[in-house]
């Protein structure tokens, strides 16, 4: 087991490096830079910018060097000092800006995952055990609609409905009095009161997908001879179900964490913009539009790293739960 974990962690390192390289490449792509836009803005107000000032600014943001050097300097500062560079737009170090938002993104993704699991499991089991019943059809139908509806559309609809009929705004993650406050128990409660709306919106697609996978898995198991044997021996149906088929059907919960996490991070980005949540989404979007390169690059890098690490954790859990995977994994 330890060997397996060590191998997986080792394989992850080049992936993380690749992610950092790609993130930097993406944000260096746009022609022109924030600085040029900034200079144009200052000149528009009638003030003059001397070449000296421009050079100074370039040197301060490290923009006077070629892109590969910029990348190396950026990486060096991250790895040695935890310094992600300066946000041009906010005029503050990136590290000060991102952790709060990243933390809330993690919290939101985690809440959504819990919600998805606790909804999908009972529904999938019901749907499989009562195959072709009316309930099964309803679940399957709703599942397909859930998969076909983009997250942000769902957010818009929910926002419209709550505004129109409940006269409340479902946006945000905190009530006004807790914004910018330190974490207290009351704030956690307030967070939980708000988080369920985006969690439901984000979770719909994932829940629908998970229900389909678990249902299919469970159906496969239910038709196997050992189940028939157990039934013919007179084992009560509930015990029979819990003893073996359910355990095997649980596998997708762990094995899908990787891609569902990716989907969650993707979905959270766009849903946060619609619901104006204080997570990474709106800030990333603004940074990209303003060519605030270090801020945008750090977000893309950290969000991607988050999913890679999440996948690793889920793989390790899966290996711990199911020995077949551990053994199969060592030969590749």
């Amino acid at each position, binding site marked *: 087991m330890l060997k397996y974990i060590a191998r997986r962690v080792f394989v992850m390192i080049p992936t993380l490096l690749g992610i950092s390289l790609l993130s930097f490449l*993406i944000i260096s*792509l746009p022609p022109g830079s924030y600085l040029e836009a900034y200079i144009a803005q200052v000149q528009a107000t009638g003030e003059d910018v001397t070449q000296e000032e421009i050079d100074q600014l370039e040197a301060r943001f490290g923009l006077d060097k070629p892109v590969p050097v910029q990348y190396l300097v950026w990486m060096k500062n991250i790895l040695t000092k935890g310094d992600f560079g300066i946000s041009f737009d906010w005029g503050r170090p990136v590290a000060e800006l991102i952790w709060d938002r990243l933390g809330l993104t993690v919290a939101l993704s985690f809440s959504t995952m819990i919600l998805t699991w606790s909804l999908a499991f009972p529904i999938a089991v019901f749907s499989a055990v009562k195959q072709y019943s009316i309930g099964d059809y309803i679940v399957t139908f709703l599942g*397909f609609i859930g998969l076909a509806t983009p997250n942000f*559309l769902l957010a*818009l609809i929910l926002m419209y409905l709550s*505004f129109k009929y409940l006269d409340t705004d479902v946006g945000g993650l905190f009530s006004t009095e807790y914004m910018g406050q330190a974490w207290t128990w009351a704030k956690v409660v307030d967070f939980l009161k708000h988080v369920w709306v985006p969690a439901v919106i984000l979770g719909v697609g994932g829940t629908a997908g998970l229900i389909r996978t678990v249902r299919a898995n469970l159906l496969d198991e239910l038709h196997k001879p050992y189940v028939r044997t157990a039934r013919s021996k007179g084992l009560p149906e509930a015990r029979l179900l819990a003893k073996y088929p359910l355990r095997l059907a649980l596998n997708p919960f762990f094995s899908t964490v990787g891609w569902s996490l990716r989907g969650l991070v993707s979905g959270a980005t766009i849903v946060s913009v619609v619901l104006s949540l204080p997570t990474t989404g709106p800030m990333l979007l603004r940074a990209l539009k303003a060519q605030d390169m270090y801020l945008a690059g750090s977000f893309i890098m950290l969000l*991607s790293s988050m*999913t890679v690490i999440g996948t690793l954790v889920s793989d390790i859990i899966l290996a711990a739960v199911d020995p077949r995977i551990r053994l199969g994994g060592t030969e590749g």
Partner: protein
Amino acid sequence: MTQESAQLLGQRNVADEALVEEMGEPEATSAEGEEFFIASQWQLMWWRFRRHKLALISMIVTIAIYVVAIFAGFFAPFDPRAYSAKYAYAPPQPIRFYDRTADGGIKLGLYIYDYKVEQDPETYKRTFVYDTDRKIPVRFFAEGTPYTILGLIPARVRLLAPVEENAPMFLLGADRLGRDMLSRIIFGAQISLSIGLVGVFLSFFLGIIIGGFAGYLGGLLDEVVQRLTEFLRSIPSIPLWLGLSAAVPPGWDPLMVYFAITVILSLRGWTGMARVVRGRFLSLREEDFILAAQLDGASNWRIVVRYMVPSFLSYIIARITMAVPGMILGETSLSFLGLGLRPPLISWGVLLKEAQLVRVLVSSPWLLYPGLAVVLTVLAMNFMGDGLRDAADPYA
């Protein structure tokens, strides 16, 4: 083909002729059975697909949506860019089918009510109300504003249009500039649907070349491609797409932006295709019927073209169908966030961007109709893809 033989199709494999003989069922040797055994692979697929009612209906819906998109000028009542400030945010007008005559009888005829603007004396807020005294007759195949079919043939006939050319008709409401939502949704389909197709073909092309070579040559190349696809797949799509689309210069003309967005969407899409193609290639190489063909002395070319390609083409087609909705959703999301397509291009995402503000949404909920178009299209394509996959894989 009857129900029984259709069921037969589901239970047995094409290659299971021997099994049928063993079972000695008389029907199997009847004329229908003959038809079954000499049917081509595509015919078998079609028979199997036909049994899946939901998939069949979805296919019809999908084809209908594409037909509407191709002949958008005919199906849309107006030019999607025609605006009139007078009707900004005008609500949808329901179509009425009959009218009461003066003596209390019923007269059939299509018409809608004209608008009347009422102003709140206190807040000065203007609202549209239907003016039941002024009816606007509408007609199928009426002469409307001129348009061109496929950009070539000039035409004037529209599926449904008001009899008088300049009369207001907003069946799905109007947007902030008084443009007809229905016409915009129909024209938006052209871009949203084509970006899905073009994007998928691009990723399919890349995937089949890269994945095919990786699977065929194996070794180091295979390893590199595998790591690369794994790497690209580990990155969450929206942040990646957003980053790349932010790099599209704002000065580009709409057509260039369109292609740039398609390429961006395919950049990650090909990894899925490559995985599928490679996996299929590897597993097919080990199949018995390939071995049999090799022992028969068939050339490599013949094996690939006659046996391998047909047996994975159907599967690939099913995968393509299932990949299109993802592309459509991707474009919609990007344009919605303002980093994808931009006006003057009309796509469903561009239209939905108008619905981003709650304030606007509450007063004009019909701005969400493009979302309905997205859901309907994606749903139909998903069901169709599901049915195709089942039909394409006889072992499912």
